[in-house]
């Protein structure tokens, strides 16, 4: 296969600076539908309640609920009210900002498994030095003020340690 031959420019273009890139801003607006399951969940959050959904086939409590059991592919609708307390199953300490974030570095993101749920919620952990966070730590939700509650997981500001003894590893090892 012969390589392509070098370009020969017309005379009028020979001293013109070539264009190396084009910046073309694009904006598209989308209106998202939460869907029935997410709407139910977020309405619960606005009322300071965490609802999981139980799968009729495997019996597990899905959190956050999406209207289906991801293992069985069946619709879920049975609401299970969960406490706003649970344990940290795993976590990481974040040291890199992303645009739009107001978080001070470093901060901790964790998977929190509310008591009775079979899946965890991703959230922030605060009110403890970041190097003292550990797996199995018992935590409780810190909600925004009542007049700031809204249909948004951000109504849970963060999770904080309750001071109770850590859950033994074996009690949550299947979630890790």
């Amino acid at each position: 296969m012969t390589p392509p031959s070098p370009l020969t420019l017309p005379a009028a273009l020979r001293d013109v600076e070539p264009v190396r890139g084009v910046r073309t801003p694009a904006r598209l607006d989308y209106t998202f539908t939460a869907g029935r399951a997410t709407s139910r969940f977020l309405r619960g959050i606005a009322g300071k309640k965490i609802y999981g959904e139980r799968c009729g086939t495997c019996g597990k409590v899905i959190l956050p609920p999406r209207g289906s059991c991801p293992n069985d592919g069946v619709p879920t609708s049975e609401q299970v009210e969960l406490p706003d307390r649970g344990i940290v199953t795993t976590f990481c300490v974040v040291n890199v900002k992303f645009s739009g974030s107001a978080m001070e570095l470093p901060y901790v993101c964790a998977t929190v498994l509310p008591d009775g749920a079979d899946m965890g919620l991703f959230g922030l952990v605060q009110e403890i030095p970041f190097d003292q966070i550990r797996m199995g730590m018992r935590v409780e939700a810190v909600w925004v003020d009542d007049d700031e509650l809204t249909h948004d997981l951000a109504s849970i500001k963060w999770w904080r340690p309750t001071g109770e003894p850590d859950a033994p590893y074996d009690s949550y090892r299947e979630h890790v």
Partner: protein
Amino acid sequence: MAKERVAVVGIGQTRHQATRGDVSIAGLVREAAVEALQDAGMTWADIEAVVIGKAPDFFEGVMMPELYLADALGAVGKPLLRVHTAGSVGGSTALVAASLIQARIHRRVLTVAFEKQSESEAMWALTLPIPFSPPLVAGAGGYFAPHIRAYMRRSGAPEHIGVLVALKDRLNALKNPKAHLHEEGITFESVNDSIMLWDPIRYSETCPSSDGACAMVFTDEAGGDAATDPAWMLGGAMRSEPTMAPGRDQVNPIGGRECAAEVYAQAGIADPRRDIDVAEVYVPFSWYEPMWLENLGFAEEGQGWKLVEDGATAMDGDIPWNPSGGVLSSNPIGASGMIRFAEAAMQVRGRAGEHQIDGARVALGHAYGGGSQFFAMWAVGAGKPSS
């Protein structure tokens, strides 16, 4: 009737780098495709079908870019498919292309995978909030770091293992002219002292963001017989699991184990550590090497980190992993899976230049994507398979 055998007769890659400001998207894919065609001793006219793969379209800001790329890929008048399976896409694209040969629908297929992350903004696209989920972390590392911590807890691995992997892969990359990162003077200390991004992942243990493309030409058995140093496909498989589900093992995903098991069964591999000479495995964060050593059956559960510490996966070890430098040294996301597959094929063809593993006859190529949920793998060999 048994499947047709598939031969890899041409391979091409761009020189991966942060920004390829000298080529358009079309130019980038064409560079890899032309190299593959030249390697195969073919022209565009010889190709009957094209299969292209890449990760989310928001990375470049072009919806369904195969439409725009039809001309650049010499696909006008031909069948053109565009595969997308998140990070594993480079691998699954190759498998879809191979299936066209296996099914005897086509005899010569071009497959290409790419990402031009400098167009649009990949970091933005990776962090695009999922509707109704508050964004908490930047980048994929924030997702994977907690699972790495879980692995460290489960296995009791010492903290420096990740650093060893990053050092190994970046040193290997110095022998690969195509790799993005060429960190002359990299040391254990320089990796270990680099800033922690998402504890326990350090900056130097994280894959770069790259512009790059990779291409391969596949033929049927007759085409392989007529070619110089073909690589023969010994097996290939794909598996998927849900992102989050009750009982999901994110550290040692069952999808990965089952995918590997199917590839090994097809390829007649009984003991991966013994039967495979070299592996190109998708390791975007250093700790995924020990995790995948276990997931892919090279080590018992909880023992993968010992292979790393013993140097087993170094270029002079008994089971070199990522002699190309791996994803840790080059990561055009959509292409990375195909680069693993291609590098595996290069090894058994004896064409890997300075990063060649001597005597490599059987190699594994591996790709994964999403929340450790999509897997695509293949095994290739220097010798034609018996069936």
